[in-house]
């Protein structure tokens, strides 16, 4: 009953405080804007994927028509012969996509730092230039998109501050604190009840916003992501409620409480993450990918300049089945096909180079993860990134999948070349089916 009275009193106080009402309204507007930004990105990426798929389909039809018309390729490029595995695979348009999760509506995470579609060929690498982010204004990316997670991680604590800053402080300044304690019995439960009132209001608002977000994309198609997002946002809210509760409990007046609240927020939102990022940049400066450059220039040249026996030895080691192929036994045609097969060896070298880079990046990620205990905002940000498939790891998986796709393409190409496979329309369509599986 006492708690109910406190709630009713707080409700009156809340509706009579234009400052607090405006803060809540601004928060809701920012949230809706953020949710729409996420939904827009989801739509935009899906539309782009659809467009690229259509283009690939057109190219596939063009190549198919060569088979139907008994042609070997475009008229002005007579060196192309799509009946050979090399040129048929070269002309099999394959894209690997990082399909956006519907949960991106809540958090775009690191989406804008990477590409989401990749044209695959036998010499592709997950670090090719088309893996970089979409054409965008870097100043906009630097200032960050106002997505829902930004509103939650940075504006929610500030809104909570505007709702709680004068709890107890106002009564102290008006000299009514003793009277309040006499009437309510316990100082802690009085502060807790008032804080809980705002917590309940915020949880209701957040739930409605998350639900609204779910209507913009197909979030409910994902198992429990909706509830997971709600759960983590609630935990985040409680985290800040506990901090602010302690400040109010031990604070002396409104101004001092406000200063402490904003001070903690600045520390957690700005100073600590910025210091960690600076520390990482000093310890592990930006990788300029010299290893990849070395492979794409010198290693490539070295591989191609090797004696024939050495190339064969490396190819046979990579694909043991190659030894028994038709071409391997025929010394006349082997020299011609060897040139088409070295992409597979270069691909292996490239994998070694990218492995080092990924390891280097993972060391950075480990350093970041080790700071989570005193760097909670980064922790919650990355948690949301994981839930919405926009985390670094999701893009690492995407890169790994691309690498697998390149490996598969090389393997099929080398084996088919060495088996002297003749490509017809059905074989060409088979290539398209195999390579488009993206697994």
């Amino acid at each position, binding site marked *: 009953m006492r708690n109910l009275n406190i709630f009713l009193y707080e409700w009156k106080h809340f509706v009579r405080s234009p*400052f607090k009402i*405006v*803060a809540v309204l*601004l928060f809701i507007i920012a949230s809706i*804007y953020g949710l729409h*930004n996420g939904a827009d990105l989801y739509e935009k990426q899906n539309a782009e994927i659809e467009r*690229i798929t259509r283009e690939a389909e057109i190219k596939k039809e063009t190549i198919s028509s060569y088979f139907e018309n008994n042609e070997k390729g475009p008229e*002005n*490029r*007579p060196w192309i012969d799509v009946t050979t595995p090399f040129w048929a695979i070269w002309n099999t348009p394959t894209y690997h996509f990082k399909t956006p999760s519907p949960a991106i509506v809540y958090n775009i*995470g690191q989406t804008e730092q990477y590409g989401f579609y990749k044209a695959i060929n036998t010499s592709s690498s997950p*670090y090719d*230039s088309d893996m*970089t982010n*979409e*054409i*965008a*204004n*870097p*100043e*906009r*990316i*630097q*200032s*960050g*998109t*106002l997505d829902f997670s*930004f509103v939650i991680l*940075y504006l929610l604590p*500030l809104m909570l501050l*505007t709702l709680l800053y004068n709890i107890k402080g106002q009564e102290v300044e008006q000299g009514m604190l003793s009277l309040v304690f006499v009437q309510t019995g316990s100082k802690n439960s009085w502060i807790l009840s008032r804080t809980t009132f705002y917590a309940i209001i915020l949880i209701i608002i957040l739930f409605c916003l998350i639900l609204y977000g779910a209507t913009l994309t197909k979030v409910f198609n994902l198992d429990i992501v909706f509830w997971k997002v709600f759960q983590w946002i609630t935990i985040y809210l409680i985290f800040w409620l506990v901090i602010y509760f302690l400040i109010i409990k031990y604070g002396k007046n409104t*101004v001092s409480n*406000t200063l402490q609240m*904003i001070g903690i927020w*600045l520390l957690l*939102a*700005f*100073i600590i*993450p*910025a210091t*960690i*990022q*600076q520390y990482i*940049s*000093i310890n592990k*400066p*930006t*990788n*300029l*990918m*010299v290893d990849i*450059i070395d492979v794409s220039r010198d290693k490539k*040249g070295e591989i191609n300049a090797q004696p024939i026996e050495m190339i064969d030895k490396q190819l046979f080691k990579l694909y043991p089945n190659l030894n028994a192929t038709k071409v391997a036994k025929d010394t006349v045609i082997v020299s011609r096909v060897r040139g088409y097969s070295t992409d597979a060896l270069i691909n292996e070298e490239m994998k070694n180079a990218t492995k080092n880079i990924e390891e*280097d990046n993972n060391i*950075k*990620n480990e350093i*970041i993860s080790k700071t989570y205990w005193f760097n909670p905002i980064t922790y919650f*940000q990355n948690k949301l990134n994981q839930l919405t498939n926009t*985390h670094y790891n999701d*893009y690492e998986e995407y890169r790994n999948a691309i690498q697998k796709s390149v490996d598969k393409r090389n393997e099929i190409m080398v084996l088919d070349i060495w088996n002297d496979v003749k490509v017809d329309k059905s074989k060409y369509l088979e290539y398209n089916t195999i390579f488009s599986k993206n697994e």
Partner: protein
Amino acid sequence: MNNMIQIIKNEWRFLIRSHIFLGISIAFFLILLLSVFLGNFQTNKQEQTYQNAKDHVRQQWVSIDEMNPHSAAHYGTYIFKPSNLMSSLDEGVSSITGNVIRVEGHVQNEIVHSEASQMQTVSRFGKLKPSLLLQYIVPLLLVFLAFNSVSNEKLSGRLKLLVLQGSKPIQIMLSKTMSVWLYGVMLLTFVLLVYGILNMHSLTTDILIRTGFFFLSYCLYYFIICGLTVFFSSRWHNPTLALTSMLGVWIIWTMFMPNILMSSAEKWHSLPSRNEFQLAMKEDRSKGLDGHNPRDKRSIALKEKVLKEYGVDSLSQLPINFDGMRMQADEDYGNSVWDKHFGTNREILQKQKQSYQLGGIVNPFISLQNTSMGFMANDNLHHQEFLLQVENYRRDFIKMLNDKQTFGGSKTGDWGWKIDNAFFKSVPDFNYKPTQVFEVISYYMLDVIVLFLWSILVIALIVFGTKKIQIV
């Protein structure tokens, strides 16, 4: 004037006597010192990485024993984006943009491998650089120092006393503003002095001028913050209300509006997707000459023209290598296509920037951000200038190779012809020429003017507020 100086002196005396203020000030000086040191150290370390990579790639190039010039054009080179000295103060977009760009024949590659893509998310507001503290934290400190400067005087009755002693209310208000503003200026000066001492040997006139404009922008912004806070403090009896109002302004200006305005500017003037951009380039390029295809119609036309010019009947009679000429014609056409499409993108980016700059009319923080990273040579404009220099270098580099192929003594179709190491050593390396401030200053004038206009508006508010102030 004497009254004002006296009030400012008094304000400082009060501040210095406060242990809390002294504690906070020491903490701020230390963290600013740390940010400058770390910023400088990080920039130097990145510069070292850059130099090593640059030397490594150059070494590869000058070590080519012998190679066909066109094979060398495909072999190409790599250019790394250098970090500039002023990144220690404000790194702007540097961590978002790529760092490596491949320079080769036939194609203009994109800059890749940004720092942000090499790890999971850490800080939404960048590294601990002085700009982070000067833009976000110092203004808040100024708000905390100024929010009760007038309201406290009213509550304690000192305001009446000051007026009775001969001070005019406007003088009191301006003095209060100036006393807090000077504190902000002192912090700013401290940062720049430490930066200057650490980089004494590398300071150039351009850096000094840029730093001067940087200083001016922050001074104006701090004046706006201090003046507005003092205005609120004079308007409201309750100091808490003045504080919360200014906190609201700060949140809207720094957290809310920059994101919204920038996202909106990007929607109003949208850029093409990369795939669309590349397809359009490919489409336009397919209308030109294919350097690798002698059967191409335009190649044949060019061949006829050259044969006529030299007065011979066949390519074998030509004293030059026509392959190189055809490659260069392909390049020239490709360059015009790139100019058209990249030019369109640059125009769109320019429009986005202008729209965003106009946002400064409602939010001076935007103007501050623009001038801060702009004068520190780390905004998108400087990034685009770097990309243009790279493209110009690429054109010279490829032309040198194609000319060697054409006029170096080989014959058409002689793809086995090679040139020796001396030639590769003679090809100049890319040498980035930092954009001089006077070449780009006009782009930031709007931001500086907006900051001045805001300062005038704040003075007007103070004057207006003084008229309505209740002394008793």
